[in-house]
């Protein structure tokens, strides 16, 4: 990151010359290490996805995504979702997973679960029922994105459950809901056609980490079983591997993408993992590798103050609104200790005040998830980039 550390800039500076920087916002008075020194709110194209909130304009954008639907190969539910997931305890999971295997971790409603990537790659969606609440854990191998969702159908108010349409938008999994057959690109999380068109799902934080890290933090976790009701070659990933010899990473590290995208940008390697943050129609990409050494960044997104905090225990980044008890906070980190400058309160990496004046306060999470750069940019060409 070098000299650029601590700044948020548009994805491609060179195209900014023709674009007004009227929306420049300075992140003021942030002196602590890793805190953003400046924040530009701009875009490389007329910002179709982030600058207009009008229903008519959103309609245009959704129609544009709908027109870009691409046949991916398999038929509807040809990649079969898991509707009756079963779980293993850590001891059993240790027999099939190595510490380096990628898992998607979920903490929700007092339940802690890990979804191994080498199982999810064959199903892409798990429709869950946690304490009576319907949620879906989704994974798209082509865009390297794992996202949890919950939502209600506007057709009948029923909780939504999802299947795989077999189609793609921007190379990203296009889900369909079983209540109205509307289509939802996973990264967008908004229906682009059908009776639920325009509805945006609620995000559930899903952590992209490794089995070794997850089980250390959550020794009582449950793990998605390979007993899925389908015959699949679990342990084998048709796209390559996140953990093995680079020669076998013929998709995850290879710059080739198989399907067309609406927008592309060469600021990073196409498959570079960024933490994508979305808030009030504004978008931010935080390069994952670089942020592990920065650890905390205070910024403004969509007009609201946010903070990104790196959790080294799980090698993940969490993003919160940095506002509590009616005041805006600025965070700094020392070792593993996160403190707000204004009150000196100590905070956990999950955004909970552990001690100090704000003890017991919990920050509000902002939608964020890990995703490959090419896919994030394809959906949100006006994205800002931390770096």
């Amino acid at each position, binding site marked *: 990151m070098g000299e650029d550390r601590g700044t948020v800039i548009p994805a491609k500076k060179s195209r900014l010359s023709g674009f007004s920087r009227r929306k420049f916002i300075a992140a003021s008075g942030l002196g602590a290490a890793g805190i953003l020194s400046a924040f530009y709110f701009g875009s490389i194209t007329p910002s179709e996805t982030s600058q207009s909130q009008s229903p008519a304009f959103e309609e245009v954008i959704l129609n544009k995504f709908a027109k870009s639907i691409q046949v991916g190969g398999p038929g509807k539910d040809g990649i*079969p979702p898991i509707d009756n997931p079963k779980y293993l305890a850590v001891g059993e999971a240790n027999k099939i997973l190595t510490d380096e295997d990628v898992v998607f971790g979920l903490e929700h409603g007092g339940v802690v679960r890990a979804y191994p990537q080498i199982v999810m790659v064959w199903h*892409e969606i798990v429709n869950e029922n946690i304490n009576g609440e319907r949620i879906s854990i989704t994974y798209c191998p*082509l865009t390297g994105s794992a996202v949890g969702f919950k939502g209600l159908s506007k057709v009948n108010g029923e909780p939504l459950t999802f299947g795989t349409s077999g189609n793609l938008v921007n190379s990203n999994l296009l889900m369909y809901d079983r209540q109205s057959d509307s289509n939802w690109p996973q990264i967008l999380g908004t229906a682009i056609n059908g009776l639920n068109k325009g509805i945006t799902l609620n995000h559930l934080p899903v952590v992209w980490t490794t089995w070794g890290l997850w089980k250390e933090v959550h020794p009582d976790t449950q793990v998605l079983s390979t007993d899925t009701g389908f015959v699949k070659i679990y*342990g084998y990933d048709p796209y390559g591997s996140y953990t093995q010899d680079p020669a076998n990473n013929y998709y995850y590290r290879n710059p080739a993408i198989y399907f067309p995208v609406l927008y592309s940008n060469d600021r990073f390697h196409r498959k570079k993992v960024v933490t994508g943050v979305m808030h009030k129609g504004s978008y931010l990409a935080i390069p994952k590798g670089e942020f592990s050494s920065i650890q905390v960044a205070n910024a403004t997104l969509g007009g609201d103050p946010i903070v990104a905090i790196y959790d080294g225990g799980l090698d993940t980044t969490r993003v919160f609104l940095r506002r509590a008890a009616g005041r805006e906070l600025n965070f700094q980190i020392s070792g593993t200790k996160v403190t707000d400058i204004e009150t000196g309160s100590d905070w956990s990496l999950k955004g909970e005040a552990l001690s100090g004046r704000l003890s017991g306060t919990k920050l509000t999470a902002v939608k964020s998830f890990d995703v490959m750069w090419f896919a994030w940019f394809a959906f949100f060409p006006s994205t800002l980039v931390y770096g």
Partner: protein
Amino acid sequence: MAEERILQATGGVQLNEILASMKRNLVQMLTISKYRKIVLIVAIAYVVVYLLAIQDIVFVADRDLGRFNAIPSIQILENWRELIFRPRVTFYWEAIGQVFLTNNIVVQFSVPNILLGSLMGTLMGLNVAVAAYSLSCARGCRVRPYGGIIGALPSFFTGFACCTPTFVVAILGGNVALSVGILSVRNLFIPIAISAMVLALLWSAQKMAALVDLASRGPRKSLA
């Protein structure tokens, strides 16, 4: 009118006579053990290559499948009746069982996939056997099996690993334009392959019928 045209085109021989002659000679060929073996061997080889192409037979070089399954072992789904005809995509169905032969080799069982592969393998075998059968005839009358073999090629482009067809990953190396173009006509691959092999077989069998007929008028020559 149509019958007249056929009679003209065939020198006055009825179409049903040609078909009957073709059938008779194919059956006659199959009474000979050597050609039955050719059909069988080619069909089996084709099925193996087809199952490899659609990833129902998989070699896993970089993972130890023994961590997930006993080696060797056989898995058959309890709910196989629900899934036996469940398509993943047109002309490609879910597996209902699998055999882990070694830590790195697994064979999946999908009844429709095996039946379809066997049908195409048999057609391929017949094409090759007819070509071999004709080799025992005069050089000018020999039938070459290229049509049948080339016709089979599209059938190898049908398997889907996940979101992406196997051939896109393995052969096209992620060429967006090619993969999108081929995907748009992908559903035609199997009908094209079967049609090409049937037509090639009919053409070869007709030619074989003609030369056998010719041979029967002159000094007889053993075809075995």
